[in-house]
């Protein structure tokens, strides 16, 4: 909504031209290491290479340069370069050093002649035991390989260097999700390692059309990004646009998915999240099947699902593992709670301060009675309590976990109770605050929950100044804003506006799974049919009668009812 304030809207072609410019910039202007001669190649001059390493990369003490000799006789000098905190040293010993040492000791003429120690390809093919080895002569690639935990082998006189996969750094294993728990089904959540995360997806999606596209972004951080989608299900424009936008990112650091999300979103200034983050691989796969993309980032345990509509932020895995009755009811609970969390306190302010005749008489008297002696007007009262709630939320989040419970008690009970006793706020206010905070947290995604929390402040201000009129006005502004939002071209309010029938089946109501035959058309999936309509075979399901214990004392089916097979076991 507000992006117009800052930037003249630009035509697609203009932006595309701009992006092209960025892409076509010579690498020297945006390459990773300004100092080192980019575009340089390794072509056998080991002395020069070692000097260059020691001047640059190896100034850091965690980079190890292991110099040794390789080849028959006195051999030729060679170096292994690796970052000692990123590699599995056993792999280096077993798969690189000892085969090389063995090869140097070969006496057999046949063996010796077979290996050409001046050819990287030859060493790769005949000597090394490691499974993932690449010959590479671009200096930049070699240096980058060291940075991600690979080992490079440079041999004097050889035409190329070798990149050997020896990654073996400490990382968290796959664990339960922290923020998106479910009552049934898989409990796995993404870990911080990109490859592990991709494996989690692959395990659930054994489709040959499942594409994973790896990219590196961030001038200095060189973060791995994986774009995952299913070809033929995801509209081809989406990966294209995502890739374009990611390539256009000009930043030296992209530390996690949130940073990518901030660049990718259609409207950078909106309060609302436009990409649904998830910690759950099963959720990600379900979204992939709808025709969306999942963006995974190295070192981040969350995946971004794009494009996302407001509906997606109210979906959970639980919606699909319970009966559709249950799923529909909990969706409505979330919806009602969402509305309560935004308007309950503003309504309190508006009704008590502007329209008390709209409250039932008894309640009006009760509120009026409890407000007796409270020195602040309603809006200030609500502001104080909301402020306290915000402070509590933040402090509990930042505190060491051990202390958070006790602080919670102090903050929640003591502060709230004392505030009522001291007649700073009313007890009714406290109840409503608790309901509001709880309702807010029913949103399955913390991103949308915090967006609504901020929206609530706006509603409060509007209600404090204009009463019910303000609330209505604010609701209109909100609706206007929401309807302008898009996520990769998909309207944020879809499938409600624009209205799509098949979207309703998995919107406010979750239809039985067999009835969800079509993918949401708002994403324009090339393959629309998700499943054929299900028809249960009309069979007699009367269970086979069971006779009494047989001669062998076991219960078995009556004679002539597949008894033979049973006997055979």
């Amino acid at each position, binding site marked *: 909504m507000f992006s*117009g304030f800052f930037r003249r809207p630009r035509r697609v072609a203009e932006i595309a031209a701009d992006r092209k410019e960025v892409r076509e910039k010579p690498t020297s202007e945006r390459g990773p290491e300004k100092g080192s001669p980019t575009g340089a190649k390794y072509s056998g001059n080991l002395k020069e290479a070692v000097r260059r390493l020691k001047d640059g990369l190896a100034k850091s003490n965690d980079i190890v340069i292991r110099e040794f000799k390789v080849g028959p006789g006195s051999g030729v000098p060679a170096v292994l370069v690796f970052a000692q905190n990123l590699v599995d040293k056993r792999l280096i010993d077993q798969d690189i050093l000892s085969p090389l040492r063995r090869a140097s000791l070969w006496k057999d003429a046949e063996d010796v002649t077979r290996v050409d120690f001046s050819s990287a390809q030859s060493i790769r093919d005949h000597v090394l035991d490691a499974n993932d080895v690449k010959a590479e002569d671009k200096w930049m690639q070699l240096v980058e390989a060291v940075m991600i935990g690979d080992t490079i082998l440079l041999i004097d006189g050889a035409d190329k260097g070798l990149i050997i996969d020896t990654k073996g750094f400490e990382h968290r294993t796959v664990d339960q999700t922290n923020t998106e728990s479910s009552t049934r089904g898989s409990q796995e959540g993404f870990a911080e390692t990109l490859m592990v995360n991709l494996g989690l997806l692959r395990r659930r999606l054994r489709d040959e059309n499942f594409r994973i596209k790896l990219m590196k972004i961030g001038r200095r951080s060189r973060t791995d990004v994986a774009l995952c989608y299913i070809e033929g299900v995801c509209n081809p424009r989406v990966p294209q646009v995502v890739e374009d936008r990611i390539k256009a990112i000009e930043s030296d650091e992209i530390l996690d998915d949130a940073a990518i999300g901030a660049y990718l979103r259609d409207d950078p200034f909106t309060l609302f999240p436009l990409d649904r983050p998830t910690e759950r691989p099963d959720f990600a796969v379900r979204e992939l099947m709808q025709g969306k993309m999942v963006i995974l980032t190295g070192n981040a345990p969350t995946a971004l699902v794009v494009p996302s509509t407001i509906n997606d932020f109210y979906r959970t895995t639980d919606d699909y593992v319970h009966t559709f009755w249950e799923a529909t009811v909990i969706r409505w609970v979330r919806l009602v709670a969402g509305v309560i969390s935004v308007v309950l306190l503003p309504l309190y302010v508006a009704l008590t301060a*502007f329209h008390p005749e709209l409250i039932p008489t008894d309640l009006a*008297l009760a509120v009026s009675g409890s*407000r*007796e002696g409270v020195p602040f007007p309603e809006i200030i009262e609500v502001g104080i309590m909301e402020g306290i709630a915000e402070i509590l939320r933040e402090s509990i989040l930042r505190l060491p976990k051990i202390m958070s419970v006790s602080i919670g008690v102090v903050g929640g009970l003591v502060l709230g109770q004392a505030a009522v006793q001291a007649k700073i706020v009313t007890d009714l206010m406290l109840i409503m605050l608790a309901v509001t905070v709880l309702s807010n947290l029913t949103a399955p995604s913390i991103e949308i929950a915090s967006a609504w929390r901020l929206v609530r402040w706006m509603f409060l201000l509007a209600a404090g100044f204009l009463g019910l009129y303000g609330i209505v*006005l604010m609701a209109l502004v909100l609706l206007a804003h929401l309807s*302008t*939002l898009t996520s990769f071209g998909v309207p944020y309010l879809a499938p409600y506006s624009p209205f799509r029938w098949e979207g309703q089946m998995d919107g406010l109501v979750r239809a039985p799974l067999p009835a969800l035959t079509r993918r949401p058309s708002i994403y324009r999936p090339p393959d629309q049919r998700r499943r054929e309509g299900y028809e249960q075979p009309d069979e007699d399901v009367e269970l086979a009668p069971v006779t009494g214990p047989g001669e062998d004392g076991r219960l078995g089916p009556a004679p002539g009812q597949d008894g033979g097979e049973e006997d055979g076991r």
Partner: protein
Amino acid sequence: MKRSWYRVLLAVLLPLTVLTGCWDYRRLDARAFALAIALDSGDDGQLEVTGQFPRPGALKGGGGGGGGGSSQGEEAFFMVTGRGGTFTEALTDMQNMLSRQASFGHLRSVVVGEKLARQGIRPMFFELMRFPEVDKTADFMVALSAKGADVLRAKPPQEKLPAIYLSRAFLTIRARNFTVPSRIVDFYVNSSNPGLSPFMTSLSLSSSKVPKPPEGAGPQGGGGGGGKGKDTEPDQISFKGMALFSDYKMVEKLEAEEAQGLLWVKGARNQTLTLTRGGPGGDYDAIRNLWTKSTMFARLENGGLVLSYEVNGEGDVEQSRQRAIRVTDKDFRELEKQASARITADATKSLKKLQASRTDILGTGAEIRARYRGLWVELTRDRAWEDVFSGARIEVKASVKLRRKGIIS
């Protein structure tokens, strides 16, 4: 999308310019809610408006813990009486005695003293109708032989606030159809319909302490509640019947039985009809859950109007003590006949009284106007409907059917 911000800005800012009326922020605890007002005619002929305002603080927790004793414990409400030539003047006078802004958004009951009702309530009624804060569905009633303020001052023990007592009682009346409840809007609609006369529910005060007939004769002192002795202070309010109005003046009152008689014609729900035989303690039959529906037929006979009401009722036999041993169809037919006769008699009597007071609160005229258009035009060509009505011949034909005959043991 990118260019929509100024439209949003316009949508927000433009309405602000016309917002002066919405700027009515007032803290809840800066308002005094009048839950009930009483309209009375003062001794000097001035209008007295008495408002009943709750004390929110006293209402909240004070009931159990505070001094709820009969002596000087803090009351849950206070009353302020404003005087003036008009309703608005009286309200202004009342506001001058209040620390908080009087608010009538929660007004539930308006009680009119009989004296004022007999004098005529036309001017204040229209001021009341035009007063925007007042909910027009508030209950509207007449205090018989008392001042309206006395009713508000009476303390029925069931509720802390007399105003709450009144509105709850009206809810009960509405649910039980005991007598016909009236609201401000009903009164307005009735009085603006040429074929319909307005009425109000009437109530009377009595004291549970001294067995003395509710003699009325309210406080003579104009000082807003004279110093009456505690013993005779009325603490019972009963809803007995109806006050009939003509031209905004109370002209007649119907007692409870008379109101019941009208109810049969108007359409009763869930009523009980007891037929006694012999003296007290004698044989009796009761018909419960008696519902009636009536249809009115109008015709001209020898140039005179004949109004014929056909009342059909259905009910359950509740008690038939003497004939519990053998109950035959004949007995039931006999019972039905008696009930029908009783209803006919009651209804006729009440209708006669309506005729005598020239008030048609049943809306017979409105019905004729709707269903017998030609007749209506002819009848009211040179006479008011009330005169036609009072000169008409009344026929009531009631027939009661009994159900659940088999249940009697």
